[in-house]
């Protein structure tokens, strides 16, 4: 290797990947090991690839991704807790040719925002919803979410989620798939390179549906880790996610082209 310097390697012909210009240079506020950063990047890469930088309006939620607008380099609105689908409805109804998306966590979308989520889906708003499900409230410090697994310990279920008194984890994605207003419903993950590639294809399809004015919402759930909230090391949390979250929140398409996918 003698004689080869870094300058010899950094050449346009050697470039295989670069950060999308639609991610800002602001330092991500997410914990090291968290899946949010990857999910952000995928959404922004896709908007750049689809050439929609100047026609996209994103809606940030309340929760860990409340600051999504610091990182996503498109026009953004920050919504009150749970109301992103209503905010996105307002935008899309008066700018039907623009690309509108929400980026929401499980507390935002599946607890306080249940009504807005279901009704936006039921009206078939032509928007994309990106739903990050990590089974816990990360921002407020690890409290129980509607998607927390049975028996899972959080700061508000310190002895484990007792489904008899605390209810069962809510499969919002399966629920909205039942509504005629959803066109594409899928569940993905971003914890391995192959999962990231699949997730990217799914998110791209969701945005393409909106560009093509397909009837209804495209809804992408991403099952993600919360290593801080779960009190695990990042790698350990990903293994735990595969072993515990995926059996309950099964990955794959639930609805395609307005039709429920038959389970094999």
């Amino acid at each position: 290797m003698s004689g080869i310097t870094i300058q010899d390697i950094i050449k346009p012909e050697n470039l295989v990947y670069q950060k999308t210009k639609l991610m800002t240079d602001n330092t991500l506020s997410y914990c090291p090991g968290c899946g949010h950063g990857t999910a952000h990047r995928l959404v922004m890469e896709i908007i750049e690839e689809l050439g929609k930088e100047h026609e996209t309006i994103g809606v940030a939620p309340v929760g860990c991704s409340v600051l999504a607008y610091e990182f996503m380099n498109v026009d953004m609105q920050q919504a009150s807790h749970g109301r992103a689908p209503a905010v996105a409805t307002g935008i899309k109804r008066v700018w039907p040719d623009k690309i509108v998306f929400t980026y929401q966590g499980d507390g935002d979308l599946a607890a306080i925002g249940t009504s807005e989520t279901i009704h936006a889906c039921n009206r078939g708003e032509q928007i994309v919803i990106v739903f990050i499900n990590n089974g816990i409230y990360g921002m407020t410090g690890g409290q129980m979410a509607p998607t927390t697994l049975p028996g899972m310990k959080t700061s508000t279920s310190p002895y484990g989620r007792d489904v008899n008194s605390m209810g069962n984890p809510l499969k919002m994605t399966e629920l909205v798939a039942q509504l005629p207003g959803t066109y594409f419903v899928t569940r993905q993950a971003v914890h391995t390179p192959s999962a990231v590639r699949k997730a990217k294809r799914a998110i791209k399809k969701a945005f393409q549906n909106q560009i093509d004015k397909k009837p209804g919402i495209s809804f992408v759930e991403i099952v993600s880790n919360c290593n801080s909230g779960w009190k695990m090391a990042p790698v350990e949390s990903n293994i735990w996610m595969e072993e515990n979250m995926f059996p309950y929140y099964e990955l794959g398409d639930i609805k395609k082209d307005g039709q429920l996918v038959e389970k094999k």
Partner: protein
Amino acid sequence: MGELRLMKGNEALAEAAIRAGADAYFGYPITPQSEVVEYLMAERPENRTGMVVLQAESEIASINMLYGAGGTGKRVMTSSSSPGISLMQEGLSYLAGAEIPCVVVNVVRGGPGLGDIQPAQSDYFQSVKGGGHGDYRLIVLAPSSVQEMSDHVPLSFDLAFKYRTPVLIVSDGLIGQMMEKVELFDQMPRLTDEELIEKYPWATNGKPVGKERRILTSLYLDPHRLERHNHHLQEKYREIKENEVMFETIDCDDADYIIVAYGSSARISQKTLQLARAEGIKVGLLRPITLWPYPENEIEKFVEKGVKGFLSVEMSAGQMIEDIQLTVKGRTKVAHFGRLGGVIHSPEEVLDALKQKLIGG
């Protein structure tokens, strides 16, 4: 002369929204204001002007649709009645914080709680003192006729965009439901998308080529930045207070006593003035048209002129009276009269109260 029609207050308001060039209305039915969304749905404004009308799933959704659409620079409106307006308070706080212009209408009914569906003015505190959280103000207009239900709509849009702030029109079940002759203003054009983009560079409708993205948020995690943002809002509110106070005075020049009343109570009190004058009692009416900013300078002038007392007539247990007292500071008598819970006071009752509480008191 504009087109003359006999209309309900709620219908005049809805027609005015179309004519004022509103881009969208989002709302949820509640008595006594359901005619607004009913009228708009029946009128098909999408065919007249391209205006969007959507029945939301709740008042919470309505106000957040306003946030989204208003945040793109469009002229957007919602309406509701007291319990529904309570549900919108979080949204109003966010709209004020993120400086998004919009028009919200409260056709007030009796409370608290579910109350009843009769006219009341018991949402004054909520309207002018800030029903949501944080240091913010709304510009609050109080129409007292069907004519003003129409006229206040374009005025509200102008103020909302001039100051980038939500404007609240506080009507009540009486003004909303009663029919009067109204002269409608001519159709105003909606802005084209190009005009809008040019006019409102803050609006989030797609990042302009070669420019920075726009962000609408009320979140400032650094307390010093949030303090600066709050100072900026307060500066704006000072400017509004300086420039936008509106009121009407009737028979005040020689008045010994001043009735202060807005909305329905102002209409009722006009008759009281006649009854009082017939008995030789010199009474005038000060009608605040803006409830915030409040016409406190007018109150001050009356105090300096030496009036013998103010009667705050409002269909509430006495809310606006506090704003009168703040200016009067004990220098002359201030009393309140009003029926509660949706009962409408008569001009005679107002006159009796004036005699008992100010003249005899």
